[in-house]
Structures are given as structure tokens and as C-alpha cells.
């Protein structure tokens, strides 16, 4: 069965304290891995798509990487406004829908 697992479930950081969020997946035929950010009361907001192992993408303080079994979202020197739930989702060769992980709730304290 296709599975996407995110860890940790929650993460508290001090402003400026860099860390990484993990998304591990067990799927047959990965067509793409997506990272989204979700703020309370809002829908998921697209951040990155990764398609093949070794690929990396960056946006401001965020950097996403992909291996054959997992993806990491690295947050460098986070700020309080980076506080949100970060969602990982995979798109498989069979079908167009996304299979989501449970998310990591990130809290950055000033």
C-alpha cells in the first residue's frame, strides 16, 4: 500500500535555529513529490515539486531535497512568519491525485 509519513508531527524552533522536516514514502511509481505550506483556516499553498532523486529546489529560507525513499525540507534561519503546517504529497504513475502525509506543524518563536 502506498504510504507517505511525515516527521516530526510538531516542531518548535527558536528564530534563527535551522532544522529539517522529513517526508518518507513507500510508493510504486513516483511521478512527483510536492511540498505545500498550510496556514490555519487556509488551503495548502504550493511550495515545490521534485521529480527525481538528487533534485533540489530552493525558495528563500526553504530548500527541498529528494532521495529514492524520502524528501527533506530544510529551513535555514527560520522566522516567526515561517510558522505553519508543512505538507508533503506524492503523485503516482497511476492516477493524477495526490497522496498526502499527515503534515509537520512548525512553530518558530521570536
Amino acid at each position, binding site marked *: 500500500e502506498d504510504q507517505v509519513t511525515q516527521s516530526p508531527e510538531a516542531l518548535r524552533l527558536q528564530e534563527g535555529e535551522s532544522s529539517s522536516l522529513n517526508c518518507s514514502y513507500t510508493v510504486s511509481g513516483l511521478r512527483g513529490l510536492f511540498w505545500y505550506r498550510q496556514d490555519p483556516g487556509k488551503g495548502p499553498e*504550493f511550495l515545490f515539486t521534485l521529480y527525481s532523486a538528487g533534485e533540489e529546489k530552493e525558495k528563500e529560507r526553504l530548500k527541498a531535497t529528494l532521495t529514492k525513499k524520502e524528501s527533506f525540507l530544510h529551513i535555514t534561519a527560520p522566522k516567526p512568519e515561517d510558522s505553519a503546517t508543512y505538507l508533503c504529497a506524492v503523485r503516482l504513475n497511476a492516477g493524477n491525485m495526490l497522496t498526502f502525509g499527515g503534515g509537520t506543524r512548525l512553530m518558530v518563536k521570536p
Partner: protein
Amino acid sequence: EAGVTQFPSHSVIEKGQTVTLRCDPISGHDNLYWYRRVMGKEIKFLLHFVKESKQDESGMPNNRFLAERTGGTYSTLKVQPAELEDSGVYFCASSQESKGGVAFFGQGTRLTVV
């Protein structure tokens, strides 16, 4: 460019009543998806339209849920009759394959069945 819009943002109904959720996708997006998040669980796929046709409805929980997409534009998701376990946040997303197939989400409709 306007994003995905969902109506209403919140709905509270009694068990046994009917509720209709609406989604207006990004203009020009052929793909439209419905997802749902119930309390404490991850976001789960419900169904996928390509234009006005249902491409995949494997995630629909039962026949109390009916989705339509009129003329390949907006979509509605009707729950009839609603049960307590239908409570959750319903998200709509749209995408266009020619733009990488990235799904853009609406803000969601929070449905509470009491």
C-alpha cells in the same frame, strides 16, 4: 489571476440534511479535484474531473456524496443525507497539465454535521 474559490467557507447542518459545496477552479484548468480532511487525519482524495468528466472517483466514501462539474467549469459536491462522520474540511484543487500539473488549492469549506 484569480485562485481557486470555494463556497461557503463554513457550513453547520443537522444530521440528515443536505449540503452543497461549490468550487470555482482557476480559469482554464481542465483538472479539478476534491479532497477532504477529517479531524486528526491527513488530507484524502475524493475524486477527479477532467473537464466535465469524472476521471477517478475512487475516493468517494459512499453514495451519499454526489459531485458534478457543469460544462467543465465550476463543480459542486452534494452530501445527502449528511451524517456526523462527514464533518471535516473539504478542499477543492485545480491544475493544468501544460503548466506542470501542480494542484492549486482553495481555502476549503469547513463542514460541521451536528
